[in-house]
């Protein structure tokens, strides 16, 4: 059975095919997507179409009436729409047919083709694109079948491999560790010492997972007040940390200090007052803000920048290691889906 078939056609421009300066020319908002659908309809060669436009990729899945001229006609339509010459489009885009297009769809949906391997956001974006395509009436029996089966295959990959497991950016690793210590974050409070970017990102990530109570500490109250107002939280002064430390469960420190912010002996004293509640210390400062000996105190968990980076790197390696097995699943499933499409007469056998 010939698995190439111009009836099912994919044209993709993505981070693997072109650099960002060329890629951004293909980026579309929702209104522009609607207009492109209309343009494609006017070609009268496209029977069904689905447009996926994200920050990293433009993809057009289509069922063409004329498999021989399908790709050329669509590129011509894109040329008019984008006002980019046809040769440039041919240079930027990759055209795939039949089973290869199905495999590509599964791999994109599962996050295998993402710049950050295994990220889950793309699955939602593909689903949204499919929903829009259905709403506008551009999905017929071929694309409906293809996308429903493609989503099942992508889910299978995400559930049966470690492609989406583990956090791979430092802020999310910190949040994930917080969840392993405290369960939910609804009742935890976090103190951000210093006003560095990574501290702010971590605080935002904690807030997005339910943490409500925040404190922001820096060397002067005036400076802290401004930052606390922007980030949301109680302003604190670093020098008085021992007086308010026990109000917090998570301390994120990324400031410049001459003396360690916390030492083992100061924590041991404070631990009695905090009645052994777990304390998660995240030291993002260079040089380190928290004495490493603090890790020896019971119920205290200390992580520095290197620790978090190593976890993120390990998780990413694990995801990369899962690419091969994920691709094998995608290949197997795309073959099955292709056979189903042929058997059901949704694409013609050539």
């Amino acid at each position, binding site marked *: 059975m010939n698995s190439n078939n111009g009836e099912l056609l994919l044209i993709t421009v993505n981070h693997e095919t072109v650099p960002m300066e060329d890629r951004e020319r293909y980026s579309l908002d929702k209104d522009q997507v609607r207009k492109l659908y209309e343009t494609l309809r006017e070609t009268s060669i496209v029977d069904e179409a689905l447009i996926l436009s994200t920050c990293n990729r433009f993809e057009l899945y289509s069922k063409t009436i004329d498999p021989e001229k399908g790709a050329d006609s669509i590129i011509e339509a894109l040329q008019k729409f984008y006002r980019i010459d046809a040769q440039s489009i041919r240079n930027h885009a990759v055209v795939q047919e039949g089973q290869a297009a199905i495999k590509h769809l599964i791999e994109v949906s599962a996050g295998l083709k993402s710049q950050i391997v295994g990220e889950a956001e793309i699955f939602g974006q593909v689903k949204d694109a499919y929903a829009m395509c259905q709403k506008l009436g551009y999905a017929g029996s071929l694309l409906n079948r293809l996308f429903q089966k493609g989503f099942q295959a992508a889910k299978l990959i995400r559930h049966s491999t470690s492609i989406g497991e583990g956090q791979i950016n430092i802020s999310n690793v910190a949040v994930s560790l917080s*969840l392993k*210590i405290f*369960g939910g974050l609804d009742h935890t409070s976090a103190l951000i010492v210093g006003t560095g970017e990574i501290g702010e990102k971590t605080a935002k990530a904690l807030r997005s997972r339910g943490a409500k109570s925040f404190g922001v500490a820096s060397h002067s109250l005036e400076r802290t007040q401004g930052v606390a107002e922007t980030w949301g939280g109680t302003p604190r002064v670093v020098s008085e940390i021992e007086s308010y430390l026990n109000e917090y469960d998570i301390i994120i420190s990324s400031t410049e200090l001459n003396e360690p912010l916390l030492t083992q002996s100061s924590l041991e004293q404070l631990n009695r007052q905090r009645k052994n509640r777990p304390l998660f210390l995240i030291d993002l400062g260079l040089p380190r803000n928290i004495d490493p000996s603090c890790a020896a105190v*019971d119920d205290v968990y200390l992580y520095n920048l290197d620790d978090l980076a190593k976890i993120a790197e390990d998780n990413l390696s694990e995801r990369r290691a899962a690419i091969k097995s994920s691709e094998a699943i995608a290949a197997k499933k795309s073959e099955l889906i292709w056979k189903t499409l042929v058997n059901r007469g949704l694409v013609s056998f050539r």
Partner: protein
Amino acid sequence: MSLLGLEDRQWILLATIVFASASAIGAYSTLKLRRSAARPSTLLLVSVGWILQTIGLYARGLEYGGCPLSNRFELVQFLVWSAIALYIFVGPAFRLSLLGMFTSTFASIFSILSLSISRWDSAGRAPLFGDSPWIETHAALALFSYGVFGILALTSSMYLLQSRSLKQKNMGGLFPFMPSLQELAQINLRLLGLGFAILTTSLAIGAVYWSRELESVNVPKLLTTIAVWFAYGVLLFFRVRESLSYKQYSWACICVFAAALLSLEAVDQPSSQAVDSLIQSSAGL
């Protein structure tokens, strides 16, 4: 005694095989496939094992016309039965991942141990606790509390494992599938409270009976039981006052449970009333 075509020990052996299978499937799924075994399937498998064990113990009970608590084999089986019952009926409310795997491992280890040491299952014994229904209730409740403390020792071990992984920044192994430290700490407190309440009720029932028939009291058994009760009471006191770190508390729960298991040696002594009843039955009176 035979029931539905199988001897009591054969039912219990089947139950042990099911517990061991649940444990092996859980471990394979988690460590090899890197997926947590689905909670409903583990629960189903463990429930099947528990039903088989119940049939085995019921067959034993028919032999005595009461709770099968006549030797150490039966004491251990009843303890395992209690721990599994707690997991089946209360465990789902805890929503603790991997608790099923840990509980089935616990059940299979103790069950295999009790099946393989033949002297633990000495024949021709009278019930250890005489034939009073009250004292039987006392004994059953005491062993049920041991089952609760068994689960407490498991969740304490889970806490220590998880805490160690976090301290050592070791994110592999069971770490991704284990519950959070806070969840484990809360459940440990509830289990300790529950176990202590059951053991206290058991001792209260026993005390009423013993105060009526002081001569029936087996002093080493009484002292050992009170020591276990006191140890858990002290632990509960310190835990409520939050005087111990969670790590110290978890270790204490495991150590006290180990001591409680050793105390079964003292419990496995028939009361004077039971001895009398055995002598009478041997003499054909």
